[in-house]
């Protein structure tokens, strides 16, 4: 009973600098560093003012111990902040948006779950599509929300996964909620309890 047809899976384009913006706030996780570096190359070609109005928030991949300046070698940036995990980054991001002015553009690079979480914060500040750019890279693992108990299971790589909340086996659908930044998970063996389709790693 794999349900297809509902595909609200977001589609992302390669990250580019937005010359229309006045302030630029960039978020990255792990391999998201590459797209950000690419955008920073574009920033370098702008006037010095653009560099001074650009901030970078980044979570290095595990084991990556480089300093902030090594990660993003562009002198004159308003800020380069490194974080140990995405929650810490998002907390700082939220505080920053609270102080930000109209004219700010947001750039996000990383796995879809990270992009989704960042978008969710941005939505609280009424940032619209024309102010946000995102590029998906890294793992395709999904955040899955159980429609039965509403718990969110992180980092799901398989088509069928056990809910961390109620323990049900969930079928991971393509139905994506921007508000929750999660895919929907539906009981997989509802028709024949205990009979599960083959479990495969599909979101890598």
């Amino acid at each position, binding site marked *: 009973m794999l349900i297809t047809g509902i595909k609200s899976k977001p589609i992302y384009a390669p990250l580019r600098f937005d010359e*229309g913006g*006045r302030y630029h706030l960039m978020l990255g996780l792990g391999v998201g560093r590459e797209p950000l570096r690419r955008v920073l190359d574009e920033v370098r070609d702008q006037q010095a003012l653009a560099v001074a109005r650009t901030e970078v928030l980044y979570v290095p991949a595990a084991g990556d111990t480089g300093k902030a300046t090594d990660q993003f070698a562009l002198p004159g940036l308003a800020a380069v902040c490194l974080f140990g995990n995405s929650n810490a980054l998002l907390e700082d991001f939220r505080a920053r948006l609270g102080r930000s*002015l*109209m004219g*700010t553009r947001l750039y996000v690079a990383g796995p879809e779950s990270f992009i989704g979480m960042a978008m969710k914060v941005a939505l609280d500040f009424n940032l*619209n*599509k*024309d*102010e946000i750019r995102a590029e998906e890279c890294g793992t395709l693992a999904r955040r899955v929300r159980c429609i039965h108990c509403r718990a969110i299971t992180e980092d799901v790589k398989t088509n069928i996964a056990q809910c961390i909340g109620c323990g049900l086996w969930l079928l991971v659908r393509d139905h994506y909620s921007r508000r929750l930044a999660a895919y929907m998970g539906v009981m997989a063996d509802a028709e024949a309890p205990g009979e599960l389709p083959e479990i495969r790693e599909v979101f890598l």
Partner: protein
Amino acid sequence: MSGGQTIEVVVKAIEQVTPLIKHFQLASPRGEALPAFSGGSHVIVVMRGEARVHRNPYSLLSAPQNLDSYEIAVRRMDESRGGSHFMHDRLRVGSQLEIAHPVNLFGLDKIARKHLMIAGGIGITPFLAQLEDLHGGLVPYELHYSVRSAEHAAFLARLQAREQEHVHIYYDSENQVIDFEGLLSKQPLGTHVYVCGPAGFIGRVLDAARGCGWSPSHVHWEQFSAPPTGDVFQVQLARSMKKIVVPQDSTLLEAIEAAGVDVPYLCRGGVCGFCQSKVIECDGELLHYDHFLSDAEKAGGKTIMPCVSRARANHLVLDL
């Protein structure tokens, strides 16, 4: 359908509020409640003169909570094609009018974190109704109103009575100007700006917003300008098989309507897109005055907004 079914109203009160602006109160002749609307809405007033019918859009400025009557304000235009002169000179208390159902093309963004309203002259009207919606709410707002002089400032008492801390008034007569750049460069994230006034005024706000890095989805504007007049031209309506002449001081849409052909419309100001009509043939130049079509569409010559646009051609055929 032409803007939908009309509502009959009677003029209940008229007040000359500034040397150029008259304020009208319209109510149902039977004392019934009028249709509900939200702040920023306009109505099209149908004026049946002897020679011709005018249909002009006017913002509703009364409180949306009060449906006993609608209020509109009409500025007397120097070169009126007749609409504003009709309203100023011909209407008396008790006059009957037809209006179309209110339509809102200038509503406040529902999830904005702040509203920044900028009005020039008569452009204050849609904001008066919006202020009623905002009053006592949680979303911060500011109104910046630029006007010739205190004498010309319509509804000053209304603004000053209740909204003092939110309202900033600038008089040309005292060389007070709104610093658009300054204003737009310090707004918190999630602010929406709304501007209504003369074309040049709106243009300067839009330029400043772009310069300050505002994204288009946060910038809203409304302009009710009299559609431009121009040379006489001829049009053929292919489907209704009519040949009509568009006089100098009449719009293409008015001429089509006068010939008995209905074209849907909402704004009659070149912004809503409803009146868009297909051009089948044109051996000359289309004069696009609308704000709806993209530059590419305008250059393409396949489509026209008859509420404001005209043509310089000998042979123009529309799919109507």
